[in-house]
């Protein structure tokens, strides 16, 4: 367990999460004073030992009338805890004037709202649960507080909604702290009351920053009401590190898409060592401005958000390469929540046939496949149909002396299309890894030989020649993956040596298990170095015509749509089409490796989990997992408990990379994206709860659904 993170419960709300008896447990929650029942029901934790962590809650409020909100801390740790400094900010986006970028606490007339902000802070002498002294907290963001050591101009900026930077927020609020909260006690840290008439009912946004308990630098943050109004775009919200440092009233950069995908305009995500001197950024680019700086001590890295002119990004990325301490730098692609269902006409059919088991939209947010990943398909040959256009590379024909690697009966093209058919091209199907390249290795005649399983006949000689050729290509780095949707009962003499030679180059050999519903799986699927893929019904249950047994590694849908030519897709069945699903998933993984900008930034654990997927285990299975069974092995990846692919997908919900999927992630979600139905970034693939239907709102419950399936923390 990471000692820097703890679990928290909000006693005031009657919710407590399990916690180590020795672990301090502090909950801080917002409570809407006029709500009949507590508006917030989730207890969360968050490590804000690194600067820049913020939590944002949207609290629905009527257009007028006195209202108040409170920040409440509760302690169910079993011991007293010390509270450190905190700050929080309240603003009402409905009160923003023209050009306003932030409007603390809903003021003033010039912004279209009328009334008095009326701020009152309560801390801490009025609460007997607290002991110690406060150095002088007098309220929230108000004139008096700004007057208490803060430049009046800063408040003026805040009050009028003008852009500006408060360089002295710190001095206003870090006078707090040193108080002790008794076990079992709760305390209102601060309240905000106001009587502002707004143009319409809306929400106020509470931003709480750097609430810190002095023990182990671990803090608790607020919780959010998942049933509250849809997240409001945080345009103009406070961004950047509030404490310590500056409070930047800057608008979030707009999203642009210049053909390579959506990204935040003019921003770079830079991963650096902890020791990296950010002062050098301005030397590389006078316009470069550090707007976020998050330390991940457990990873030994910092994730920086750097803003500059959009036209400077490419040059700055080049300059950053080779700079000591820089690990990676890339544009701020919006990988999450943007992928929509492809427009390929048979995509729905593919999903219904079982691909919906695998959250491809999730995986595609990492990568859709790199053409630099070359997948050898040992089969009947592959035609360069439109869905594979430009991505069928020269291969090898071992049936005769020609270089013709076109298909002879469509099987090879069907298999290749399941792996790599283009998506979003308005035709055919979508492959699992739509961007990767196919290397046809022609080893099967388009004839059926009585006594041989299968539909095309693959003499052992061409298979062996093909395997050794692939091994040589793997050794030179020209092939990264192998798919074999073929098999038979007898072993292929010498094939094990060839497959081992391929495997030793870290090139997975993915093989169909067989279709006669018996055990063991066919050869070469049962080769110790092959990944044996069984077949399932669309619901992930074992399909009885798929071979099974002790050598089975994993499973994928037995049925799908596939392209055998430029014509309409055909409904295809067999473990021939299960194997390429797994091949495609591995291709995505490898594509991510090869395109670090696509994933590595800010998500340093994803690749490790993928690497774990390929671990050998003493029990022969190439793919390791818990819950293995002889019918579906480790299961369909998304459905399996312990597979990297699923874990990686779940990791995507860990938006702040702290290894916990919690409300802080939801708040990031709210901060960056609108995630309700009809909004551009709403994606039904993330709308996971309730089970039976999407509730048209991606919120913390959806995150926690994944959370609960994955366990509470990263491995």
């Amino acid at each position, binding site marked *: 367990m990471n000692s820097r993170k703890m679990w928290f419960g909000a006693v005031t709300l009657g919710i407590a999460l399990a916690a180590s008896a020795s672990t301090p447990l502090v909950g801080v929650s917002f409570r809407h004073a006029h709500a009949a029942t507590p508006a917030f029901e989730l207890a969360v934790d968050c490590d804000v030992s690194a600067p820049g962590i913020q939590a944002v809650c949207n609290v629905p409020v009527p257009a007028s009338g006195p209202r108040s909100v409170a920040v409440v801390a509760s302690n169910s740790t079993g011991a007293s805890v010390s509270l450190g400094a905190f700050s929080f900010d309240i603003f009402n986006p409905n009160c923003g004037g023209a050009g306003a970028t932030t409007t603390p606490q809903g003021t003033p007339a010039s912004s279209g709202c009328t009334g008095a902000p009326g701020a009152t802070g309560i801390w801490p002498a009025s609460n007997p649960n607290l002991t110690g002294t406060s150095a002088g907290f007098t309220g929230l963001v108000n004139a008096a507080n700004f007057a208490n050591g803060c430049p009046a101009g800063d408040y003026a900026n805040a009050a009028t909604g003008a852009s500006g930077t408060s360089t002295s927020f710190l001095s206003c609020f870090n006078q707090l702290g040193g108080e002790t909260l008794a076990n079992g006690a709760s305390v209102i840290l601060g309240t905000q009351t106001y009587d502002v008439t707004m143009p319409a009912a809306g929400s106020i946004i509470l931003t709480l920053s750097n609430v810190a308990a002095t023990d182990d630098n671990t803090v608790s943050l607020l919780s959010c009401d998942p049933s509250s109004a849809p997240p409001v775009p945080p345009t103009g919200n406070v961004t950047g590190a509030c404490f310590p440092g500056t409070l930047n009233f800057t608008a979030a950069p707009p999203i642009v898409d210049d053909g390579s995908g959506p990204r935040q305009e003019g921003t770079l995500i830079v991963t650096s060592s902890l020791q990296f001197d950010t002062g050098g950024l301005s030397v590389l680019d006078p316009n470069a401005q550090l707007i976020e700086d998050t330390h991940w001590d457990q990873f030994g890295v910092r994730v920086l958000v750097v803003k500059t002119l959009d036209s400077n990004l490419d040059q700055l990325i080049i300059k950053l390469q080779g700079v000591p301490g820089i690990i990676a730098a890339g544009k701020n692609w919006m990988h999450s929540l943007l992928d929509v269902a492809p427009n390929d006409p048979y995509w729905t059919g593919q999903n*219904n*046939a079982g691909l919906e088991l695998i959250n491809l939209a999730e995986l595609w947010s990492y990568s859709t496949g790199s053409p630099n990943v070359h997948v050898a398909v040992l*089969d*009947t040959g592959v035609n360069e149909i439109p869905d594979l256009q430009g991505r069928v590379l020269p291969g090898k024909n071992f049936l005769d002396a020609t270089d*013709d690697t*076109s298909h*002879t*009966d469509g*099987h090879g093209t069907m298999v290749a299309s399941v792996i790599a058919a283009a998506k979003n091209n308005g035709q055919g199907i979508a492959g699992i890894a739509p961007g990767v390249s196919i290397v046809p290795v022609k080893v099967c*005649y*388009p*004839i*059926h*030989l*009585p*006594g*041989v*399983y*299968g*539909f*095309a*006949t693959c*003499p*052992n*000689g061409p298979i*062996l*020649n093909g395997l*050794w*050729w692939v*091994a*040589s290509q793997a*050794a*030179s780095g020209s092939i990264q993956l192998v798919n074999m*949707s*073929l*098999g*038979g*009962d*007898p*072993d*292929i*003499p*010498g094939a*094990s*040596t*060839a497959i081992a*030679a391929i495997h030793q180059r870290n090139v997975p050999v993915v093989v*169909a298990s*067989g279709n006669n519903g018996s055990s063991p799986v*066919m*050869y*070469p699927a049962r080769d110790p170095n092959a990944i044996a893929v069984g077949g399932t019904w669309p619901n992930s249950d074992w399909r009885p015509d798929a071979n099974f047994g002790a050598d089975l590694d994993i499973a994928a849908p037995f049925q799908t749509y*596939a392209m055998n030519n430029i014509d309409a897709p055909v*409904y*295809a*069945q*067999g*473990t*021939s*089409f299960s194997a390429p699903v797994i091949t495609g998933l591995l291709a995505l993984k490898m594509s991510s490796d090869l395109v670090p900008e696509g994933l590595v930034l800010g998500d340093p654990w994803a690749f490790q989990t993928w690497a774990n997927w390929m671990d050998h285990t003493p029990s022969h299975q190439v793919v390791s997992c818990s819950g293995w069974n002889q019918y579906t092995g480790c299961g369909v990846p998304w459905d399996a408990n312990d597979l990297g692919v699923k874990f990686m997908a779940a990791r995507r919900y860990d938006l702040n990379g702290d290894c916990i999927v919690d409300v802080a992630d939801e708040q990031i979600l709210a901060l960056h994206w609108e995630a309700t139905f009809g909004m551009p970034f709403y994606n039904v693939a993330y709308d996971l709860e309730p089970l039976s239907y999407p509730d048209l709102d991606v919120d913390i419950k959806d995150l926690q659904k994944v959370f609960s399936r994955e366990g509470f923390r990263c491995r």
Partner: protein
Amino acid sequence: MKPIVFVVLTAAMVAASSGCRDSTPGRFVYTPVPYTVVTFPPVRGTPQPTMVISIEESGQPYSADLVLVTLDKSAKARFMRWANSLGFTVESDPESDNYPFDFIFVSVRVPLGSAADALKLIRKQHGVRDAGLSHFAGTLGSGGGQP
């Protein structure tokens, strides 16, 4: 889409009338196994395949005139000399000599119906890491049905 099965029997059943023969150095003595020459119709993109098939007791077909051999690469020349001396033909992918492995795969063409006996002899040769009859795998799926 199930491939059309079209098998033409061009020769059948070489009777095992010759029986066992003694082996002497430099001479391959075998007991012919019944075999069938199967010629398939030409298909676009591949040559017209002809296969010489024998059937194992298990029912598995295999090439009656072929033995698959994985050799130490250093033993290839010696193996070829030996094989040629018996009238065998060693076939290999010309590129494979340059593969960065210590092993090499070759197919050994032997007299019709002699693959099983030839295999026993080949397995005893220096540098042979693995050898076996040439069976057949099949592709494991088809298209054209309905969901």
